[in-house]
């Protein structure tokens, strides 16, 4: 890399290339934004779902579980748990934690009220209805 290819040429390509591809990225993000309403299940973003998302966040569920494949890998995927288990099971499960089974991975007791349990279920139902291009491969997540 010597001779005709100079440092200032390299620098100009750097700035030009970066600006070009960043603008292209912004354009794609803009297009995504307009395509999302058909995919992201926003019609079902009820107050209960929104409250459920906040419970999800303030209990740091993502610190053990994945949600649509993102998060921690210590406990099962929950993006499709509503389809796998149903709302009643989810509530009963959360209420009965921790199992205390010796040596088994433990989930904390969060002391959620009945309303909070309904909200978290609503959030997980909403999540399970997002169009994820057929991910996960099967119901086990």
């Amino acid at each position, binding site marked *: *890399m010597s001779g005709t290819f100079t*440092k200032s040429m*390299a*620098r100009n*390509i*750097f700035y030009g290339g*970066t600006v070009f*591809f*960043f603008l292209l*990225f912004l354009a*794609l*993000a803009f*297009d*995504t934004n307009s*395509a*999302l309403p058909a*995919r992201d*299940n*926003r019609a079902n*973003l009820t107050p209960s*779902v*929104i409250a459920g*998302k*906040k419970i999800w*966040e*303030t*209990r*740091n*569920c*993502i*610190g*053990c579980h994945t*949600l*649509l*494949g*993102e*998060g*921690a*890998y*210590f*406990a*099962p*995927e929950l993006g499709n748990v509503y389809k796998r288990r149903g709302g009643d099971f989810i509530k009963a499960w959360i209420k009965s934690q*921790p199992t*205390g089974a*010796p*040596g*088994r*991975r*433990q989930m*904390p007791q969060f002391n959620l009220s009945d309303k909070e349990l309904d909200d978290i279920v609503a959030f997980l139902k*909403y999540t399970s209805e*997002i169009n994820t*291009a057929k*991910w*996960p*491969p*099967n119901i*086990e*997540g």
Partner: protein
Amino acid sequence: MQYKSQAVAKLYFMAAIGLFAGQVLFGLIMGLQYVVGDFLFPAIPFNVARMVHTNLLIVWLLFGFMGGAYYLVPEESETELFSPKLAVALFWIFLIAGALTIVGYLAVPYATLAQMTGNDLLETMGREFLEQPLPTKLGIVVVALAFLFNITMTVLKGKKTAISMVLLLGLWGLAIFFLFSFYNPSNLVKDKFYWWWVVHLWVEGVWELILGSLLAFVLIKVTGVDREVIEKWLYVIVTLTLVTGIIGTGHHYYWIGAPEYWQWWGSVFSALEPIPFFAMTVFAFNMVNRRRREHPNQAATLWALGTAVMSFLGAGVWGFLHTLAPVNYYTHGTQVTAAHGHMAFYGAYAMVVLTIISYAMPIMRGRAANSNRAQVVEMWSFWLMTVSMVFITLFLTAAGILQVWLQRFSSTPIPFMQAQEQISLFYWLREGTGVLFLVGLVLYIVSFFVSGREKTSAA
């Protein structure tokens, strides 16, 4: 040391190493919880240990980057730091804020912490890597801006080299993209879409600029190769980084509700992301082979070459492994991801911080290089940590492939927890290797206290 004010870097480096040790301890706690599920429960649930592990990682790397910048910029700009006092003040603010945050995670339930710290005013908590309470996030922004002011003013009053410009750009980008951590819409798809503007555009974007410039600086110093050559390489590498890495963000948009064209954009561009890492490896070896001097600090040269190789393996090879959409469909959110996350973070960012520390610390302690004995201990720690990380990655990759097979690919898929039990052997092996990693880290810390005849020749 050419400029007095470079010495502030020492504080930052010491804090970085201390927090690194904390990070690894919590990694070992989690590694044990993977196989002995009720270990330390309910005192330290897994999700708490994980926040501590990953947040300490980010914070010690930030300390390392800032320390690196404080050391590098005066020397590149050929002038004293704009304000060493500000640098010292920011150090304490950042350290205390960081320590309080970790104490908060460990001492009170997360929901209580959220309530105490004003999460209701602006809900930003409870997302992976961005778990910090609002005051901590704001603190990060304030410290980052004041730091950038200090560094930018230094560059402006001195000489502007390619290395310091690329470093500055990387650091500004780091601060700017962090602002997306304040955007948390209730629409989960949008939340996830912009979350990656922090996480991906950091590690596969602007942080690579910081990586490249720190590495280029150390290579100039230890090889004595002409600056023109090294800086040209640096521009080529960071061009490749951003041209592939920005749109490469698409490899996170396959299955989160975004349009399906991202499977093409993401696969094609992210498949090219290994190229800049490969270029970095070629560059580093090339420069060392063409060296014009024998620098007495051989440990620093080893770290520099190690960074180049391990970042290519961790980010380039292990990233490529699962980046194409048809592969990622099966590996998304499994131990394969964890394997890659470990080797990439260690190989690229942990190692480049250890490289600049290895080069700069002896000089700040008044010698060109440490004694032979100290360097031998440091090199042992290099090999122990690096080889351990290679094996941790291999064990997690094996665990991940089995997990995918059992839970997602076979014709009779089994539930998550059952699959985890079947692969527990690999988690035990990972934990054992993790202990070896810790031994390497202890040795690394010990190397700072080993004496012997010091080397004083050329700096």
